[in-house]
C-alpha cells in the first residue's frame, strides 16, 4: 500500500515544526528562548502553503481513513489560521511570564496537529487518536502557571472531566464497533442503514450513539457538560484560554459533524432532537451565566458556552432520510456550522487578544477595569467594541451573517421544532447583547479609574488585534468572501 505523503503535507509540516521547536528550545538559552515562537509560526506558514497546494484535490489514503476534500481543507485552513493568531498573542505573554516557553510551543503545535488531522479522519480510531492529540497537550497547557493554584485547579478539573468524557465516548465507540463490525465512518452508516428501520432502532445502538455525542458534548462544553469551562478558562494562561475556547471547541464540532453526518446520519431522527434541546439549554445557561460575571475572562468563557449553543442549533434540525429535502437540510446545517465556526474563530480570538493586551503588565481583567478603555487605548477599545458587537451579532460584522446562516439552516424546511430553535436563538441574542453592550458602555462612556494604567499591548498583539478586527468588519460587509468558500464545501462524506 502506497502512502500519499503529499496529502499528509500539512500534518507532516506541523509534526516537524513541533520537533524543531523542541530541539530549538533545548539549544537556546535565556531570552533567546522566545525565538521558538517565530520558528513555530514559520512552520505554520509552511503548513498553510502545503494546504493551499492541495486545494481542490480529492484524495484518500491509509485505506480511506484519511481523506482530503473541500471540507477537510477548509477546516485545516481555519485551524492553521487560528494557530497563527494564537502564536501572535502568545509571544509576549509567554516571553514575559516566565513559563516553559519551548514546551508550551511544542504542546500547542502538537495540539493543532491533532486538530488539523481531525477533519480528514474518516475512521473512528483515527478520529479518536486525533481528538486525544488535541486534548492531552491542552491538559498540560492549562496547568502551565504552576505557581498559581487556580491554574492547577483548572488543569485538574479539565483533566478529570476530559478523561471521563473520553471514557464515555470510547465506550460508545466500542459498542458501535461491536454492532457494525467496522470503524470506518461510511461503513458504519452503511451497516446502520442496512440493519435498522427508522423508528424501531436497536436501543443499544442508540445508547452508543448518545454516549459518543455526550463525549463530544464535553469537548464543545455543551450544557450539562459545561461546568468545567468557566473555571478552566479563568485559570489557564490566557492564550491557552483563547485556544481552548476557539480551536479546541472547533475541533470538537468537527468531530461531532463527522460522526453525526457521516456515521450516524441514518439515526438523525434520534440524536437531532437531543442536540436541539442541548443547544437551547447551552445558549440559555451560557448567556444567563455571563450576565453575572465581573471577570472578563469568565464573561468570555460563559459567552463561549453560549456560542457553542448557537453552533449546536443546526444539528437540531438534521434529518436521517436520503431524499433531496433531507440532504438539503443537512447541507445547509453543515454550512451554517462551518460559517459560524470561521466567524467565531475570528471574533473570539480577537476578544481574547484584547483581554491579553489589557492584562499585560497590569494583570487587570475585571469588567470594572475596562471603564474608560476607549480613552486610554483607542485601538484596544475600538477593537474590543468590534469583537463584542460581532459576538452579539450586530450588523456590519461577521457575527450577523453567522447568525443569519443559522436561522437560514433552521428554516430551510419550516418545522415547529426548527421555529422553536430559531426563537431561542433570537431571545438569547437579545440577552447576550445586554452584557456585551454593558461592557462596551463601560469602555466608552465611563471615566477610567484613578491611576488606571495605559495598556501596552506590544507590536505583535496589536497586529493580531488590528488584523482580526479588520477581518471582522470586512467579512461583515462582504460576507461573500467566506461564504463563497463555504458554499462549495459539501458534505460529500459518503465515499
Amino acid at each position, binding site marked *: 500500500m502506497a502512502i500519499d505523503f503529499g496529502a499528509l503535507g500539512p500534518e507532516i509540516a506541523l509534526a516537524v515544526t*513541533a520537533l524543531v521547536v523542541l530541539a530549538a528550545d533545548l539549544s537556546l538559552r535565556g531570552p533567546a528562548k522566545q525565538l521558538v515562537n517565530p520558528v513555530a509560526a514559520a512552520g505554520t506558514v509552511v503548513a498553510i502553503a502545503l494546504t493551499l497546494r492541495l486545494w481542490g484535490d480529492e484524495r484518500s489514503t491509509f485505506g480511506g481513513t484519511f481523506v482530503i476534500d473541500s471540507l477537510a481543507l477548509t477546516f485545516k485552513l481555519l485551524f492553521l489560521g487560528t494557530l497563527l493568531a494564537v502564536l501572535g498573542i502568545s509571544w509576549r505573554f509567554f516571553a514575559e511570564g516566565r513559563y516553559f516557553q519551548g514546551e508550551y510551543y511544542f504542546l500547542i503545535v502538537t495540539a493543532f496537529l491533532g486538530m488539523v488531522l481531525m477533519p480528514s479522519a474518516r475512521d473512528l480510531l483515527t478520529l479518536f487518536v486525533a481528538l486525544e492529540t488535541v486534548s492531552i497537550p491542552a491538559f498540560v497547557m492549562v496547568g502551565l502557571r*504552576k*505557581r498559581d493554584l487556580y491554574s492547577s485547579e483548572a488543569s485538574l478539573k479539565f483533566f478529570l472531566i476530559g478523561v471521563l468524557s473520553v471514557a464515555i465516548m470510547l465506550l460508545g465507540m466500542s459498542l458501535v464497533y461491536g454492532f457494525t*463490525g467496522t470503524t470506518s465512518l461510511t461503513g458504519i452508516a452503511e451497516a446502520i442503514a442496512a440493519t435498522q428501520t427508522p423508528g424501531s432502532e436497536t436501543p443499544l445502538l442508540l445508547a452508543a450513539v448518545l454516549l459518543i455525542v455526550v463525549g463530544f458534548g464535553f469537548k464543545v462544553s455543551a450544557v450539562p457538560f459545561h461546568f468545567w469551562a468557566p473555571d478552566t478558562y479563568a485559570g489557564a494562561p490566557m492564550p491557552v484560554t483563547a485556544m481552548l475556547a476557539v480551536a479546541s471547541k472547533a475541533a470538537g464540532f468537527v468531530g461531532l459533524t463527522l460522526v453525526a453526518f457521516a456515521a450516524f446520519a441514518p439515526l438523525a431522527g434520534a440524536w437531532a432532537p437531543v442536540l436541539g434541546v442541548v443547544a437551547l439549554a447551552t445558549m440559555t445557561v451560557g448567556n444567563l451565566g455571563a450576565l453575572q460575571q465581573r471577570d472578563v475572562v469568565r464573561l468570555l468563557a460563559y459567552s463561549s458556552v453560549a456560542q457553542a449553543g448557537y453552533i449546536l442549533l443546526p444539528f437540531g434540525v438534521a434529518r436521517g432520510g436520503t431524499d433531496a429535502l433531507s440532504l438539503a437540510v443537512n447541507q445547509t446545517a453543515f454550512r451554517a456550522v462551518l460559517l459560524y465556526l470561521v466567524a467565531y474563530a475570528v471574533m473570539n480570538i480577537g476578544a481574547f487578544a484584547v483581554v491579553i493586551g489589557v492584562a499585560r503588565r497590569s494583570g487587570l481583567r475585571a469588567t470594572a477595569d475596562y471603564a474608560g478603555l476607549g480613552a486610554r487605548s483607542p485601538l484596544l477599545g475600538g477593537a474590543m467594541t468590534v469583537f463584542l458587537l460581532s459576538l452579539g451579532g450586530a450588523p456590519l460584522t461577521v457575527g450577523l451573517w453567522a447568525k443569519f446562516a443559522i436561522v437560514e439552516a433552521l428554516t430551510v424546511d419550516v418545522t415547529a421544532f426548527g421555529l422553536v430553535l430559531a426563537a431561542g436563538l433570537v431571545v438569547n441574542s437579545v440577552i447576550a447583547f445586554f452584557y456585551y453592550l454593558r461592557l462596551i458602555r463601560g469602555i466608552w462612556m465611563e471615566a477610567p479609574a484613578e491611576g488606571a494604567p495605559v495598556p501596552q499591548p506590544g507590536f505583535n498583539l496589536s497586529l493580531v488585534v488590528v488584523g482580526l478586527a479588520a477581518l471582522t468588519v470586512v467579512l461583515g460587509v462582504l460576507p461573500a468572501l467566506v461564504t463563497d468558500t463555504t458554499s462549495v464545501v459539501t458534505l460529500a462524506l459518503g465515499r
Partner: protein
Amino acid sequence: MGETIAFLVFAGIALGAAVAVVAMRNLVHAALMLVIHLLAVAGLYLGLESQFLAVIQVLVYAGAIVVLFLFVIMLLGVDRDDLLVAQGRRAVAGAVAVGLVLAGALTFAFVGPYTGEASVCGSDVAPTGTEQSCAGIAPVLDADDDAGVAFLGRRLFTRYTLAFELSAVLLTVATIGAVVLARRRDLSPEDEDLPTGEVTA
C-alpha cells in the same frame, strides 16, 4: 461447553474484582483487586482466541501500569484506610442507583439481541426479530491463526498506520507534559535574569 465454563468463571472473577476495586477501603487492596480484574479480562480474551491481546493485557496493564499505581500509592503514603471516607449515605445511594440503572440498561440491551443462536459468530442461523447477528469478528476469524499477531500487525501497519504514528506523538506529548508539570523549579536560574521590560523591538 468448556469455553462457557471458562467464560463464566473469568466473567465472575472480573465482575467481583471490579466491584471490590470500588468497595475496598484500602487503596493498595483496591489496586490489587484491579490486577485480578485485569487478569480475568485477559482470561476472557483467551476465551476469544486472542492470545496476543491476553498476554499484552497481562504485560502492560497488570505488569506495568498497576505496578506504577502501587508505586505512587506507596511513595505518597496514601495507603492508610482513613483517607478514603465515603461521601455520606446519599452519595453512596446515588452511585449504587446509577450503577444499577446502567447495569439494567446494558443487560436489557444485550440479553435480548445477543443471546440467541444467531448471535454466535460463524453460525448459519438467520437472525429473527430483535436478534442480532455477529459482526466485526469475521475478518479476525478468517485471518490465519497466528495468535492474532499477524492480523493485528497487518492492520496496524496498513489501515491504521496514521493513528499508530499519531499515538507516538501523543506519548511524546504526555511524557513532556508530565515532565513540565512535575519539574519543581519553574525556570532555570539564568532565566530569572529575564528583563521584565521590552525584550525585543
